[in-house]
């Protein structure tokens, strides 16, 4: 990215669950309005990296700064920091006993102390924009996976976070529901949101990313624009990783020929 305001700085991050390192010396900056997509094989530490950023995981060494302030110290007020970091999870994690509206309003009313009427009006506006207004009184079990995930995105968005983290948000979805969720994310990216996305959807990654970060074995092996990364990856590891995806495509083509 061009010289823009640094929103998030990760410096020499080291994470260990106690049986070998999960993240090794990871350094990464995310600028305001930038969309960074992290890809890499399963178990490479992608999700862990996101979870470290909002304090769901403790780190062993290194530093994370948000708006220039270190957020990885003991005195970190996570409640305040987390309001600036929206997170969407693979398994949606909507509150099963709350309606769609109550799910969305918990953060703004109970955490941020905003006026309920005002927050509800905003919730309805966003729900309408993504075509889910008619579901506002539904319970999560009455929604499809794609709908649940879109509600989860709204739930994070309404807090007006400075950065949004997406942790494999389409991985648990049926294929035909992936699109509706990705479309919401594309729209967010277009509207200038700062986002960090962990995904296995390579075409989506290419379309949405300003920058691709390739992670393997807990290390950043490559950082590049999507154009360069997908057409001319620098490392052999990235080449092999990308090949596993093209392999599937060749088979499809072969199948059609028969």
């Amino acid at each position: 990215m061009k010289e823009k305001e640094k929103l998030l700085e990760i410096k020499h991050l080291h994470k260990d669950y106690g049986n070998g390192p999960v993240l090794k010396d990871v350094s990464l900056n995310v600028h305001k309005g930038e969309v960074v997509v992290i890809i890499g094989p399963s178990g490479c530490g992608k999700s862990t990296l996101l979870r470290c950023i909002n304090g769901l995981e403790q780190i062993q060494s290194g530093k994370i700064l948000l708006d220039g302030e270190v957020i990885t110290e003991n005195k970190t007020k996570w409640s305040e920091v987390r309001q600036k970091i929206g997170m969407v999870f693979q398994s949606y994690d909507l509150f099963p006993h709350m309606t769609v509206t109550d799910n969305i309003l918990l953060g703004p009313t109970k955490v941020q102390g905003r006026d309920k009427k005002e927050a509800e009006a905003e919730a309805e506006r966003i729900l309408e924009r993504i075509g889910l207004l008619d579901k506002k009184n539904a319970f999560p079990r009455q929604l499809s996976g794609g709908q649940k995930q879109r509600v989860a995105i709204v739930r994070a968005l309404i807090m007006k976070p400075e950065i949004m983290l997406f942790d494999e948000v389409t991985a648990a979805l049926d294929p035909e529901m992936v699109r509706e969720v990705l479309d919401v994310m594309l729209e967010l990216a277009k509207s200038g949101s700062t986002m960090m996305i962990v995904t296995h959807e390579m075409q989506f990654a290419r379309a949405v990313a300003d920058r691709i970060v390739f992670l393997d074995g807990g290390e950043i092996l490559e950082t590049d624009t999507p154009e360069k990364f997908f057409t001319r990856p620098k490392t052999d590891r990235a080449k092999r990783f990308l090949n596993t995806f093209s392999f599937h495509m060749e088979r499809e083509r072969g199948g059609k020929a028969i």
Partner: protein
Amino acid sequence: MWDNTIVKMLLEGTGATLYMTLVSTLFGYVLGLPMGIVLAITDKEGIKPNTFIYKILDFIANIVRSIPFLILLILVIPLTKAIVGKSYGSSATIVPLVIAAAPFIARMVESSLKEVDKGVIEAAQSMGAGTFTIIWKVLLTEARTSLLVGVTIAIGTILGYSAMAGTVGGGGLGDIAVRYGYHRYQTDIMIVTIIILVVLAQILQGLGMMFSKKLDRRHV
């Protein structure tokens, strides 16, 4: 023999049993619910891990639960006297009932709260929700079905305990069963009290399960 006095006695006994059971359950939860919440959140997997507090509560819960109820009844007589003023009768029975029930209730609350999906708790944490909000809005709300099943189990157990208190003059149906059925060999009265106890247990169990199902939003 089925004169008015006996019917009246059985009715009063039923009333006393219900009184002991419900009041003890109520106070059992007054003590047990907070204790269960603290156990759940201070556990090493909880939202506010604190080994020291967890170990202390864990120890208390285990000790009280390992004392047989009949012994506990006698053991706490001084305390009962201090609180109620006497050591026999329905109100006096409530003291040992609460002491016996609270740790048991705390354990059930603890296990209900630990059933709440970790992902849902993390979702609340990730939006900056504080401990109190998570306890109130996430843990207790999401576990409410399980908590109500717990209440039902607690009522059933305390009902049984209250009848046991009859052996030491605790009042209620258990008291009648012991005095008439055991000391006076009037088996018919004993059987009637047993039937009433069974019916009470069934009704309370049924009501509890009904409420618990009504409040469940997880399934269609």
